[in-house]
């Protein structure tokens, strides 16, 4: 169960012709998740800044 199913990097990327499908899906998936996390983090940072400014001025 724990042997590598492929023998070299080229095989991993190619996956017997199916590589483009598999990797494009995972690339999109990973990038969507990463981008949503960064958007969420930016939003929190922005809100926190705003609230700090508000509290400092009031």
């Amino acid at each position, binding site marked *: 169960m724990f042997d590598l199913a*492929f023998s070299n990097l080229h095989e991993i990327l190619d996956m*017997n012709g199916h590589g483009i499908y598999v990797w494009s899906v995972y690339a999109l998936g990973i990038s969507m998740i990463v981008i949503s996390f960064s958007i969420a983090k930016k939003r*929190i940072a922005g809100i926190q800044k705003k609230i700090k400014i508000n509290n400092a001025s009031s």
Partner: protein
Amino acid sequence: MISAFIHKFSSPKSYVRLTEKLYPFFIVLGVSLLTLGWIWGLLFAPQDAVQGNSYRIIFLHVPSVIFAELIYFFMAICALMHLVWRVKLAAYLIKAAAPIGAMITFLGLFSGSIWGIPTWGTWWQWDARITSTLILFIMYLGVITLHGSFSNLIKADRLMSILVIIGVINIPIIKKSVDWWSTLHQPASISISGGSSIDPSMLYPLLISIIGLGFTLISLGILSSRSYIFTREKNKKWIAEHV
């Protein structure tokens, strides 16, 4: 008495405090399990006898469609809490969860579509499951658009909750009717290895990916809901200690 209990534990303040503690745990667990599941599935699991290597999309596709529906059910429970017990936090959670649900539904549709190219030779098929997932995606868009159209946020919260509850009642109706419709035309067949059971060497990475994606999405939801809570409650005193 129930309503007092609910109101004690569902204030935005206690939610923010609780999630602040849980977030590091969830994100680490989620990302590591997801990475483990995907590396195992992509590199170590054996080739499928029928589909070759394209079946490896399953480790993203199946978790995505599972959570596409689970997130909607979560939103429905929150909508119920908002409408019946007037829990404000529940509406904030719906608003935070909807874009995540839409994204994961889109991922499910996209991954399934790409998987279909080597498997069925076509990137789209009008069968029951695919069509109901597409309609689910439209329902998420409806919820997001509805809340965004109203400047009176309290009104928007209530309308959004009504739409979510009607939508969740609609999900089984759509599944049954699209299933009935597609069996009138052609049978749907999505199988991994021609049989109905899945080999353990593929099942374990799949389960790990599902749990990993779940915790990752929960962490994303925590981040998203915290920022929304800060936006909505920014004039309250307790906010200052959390910023």
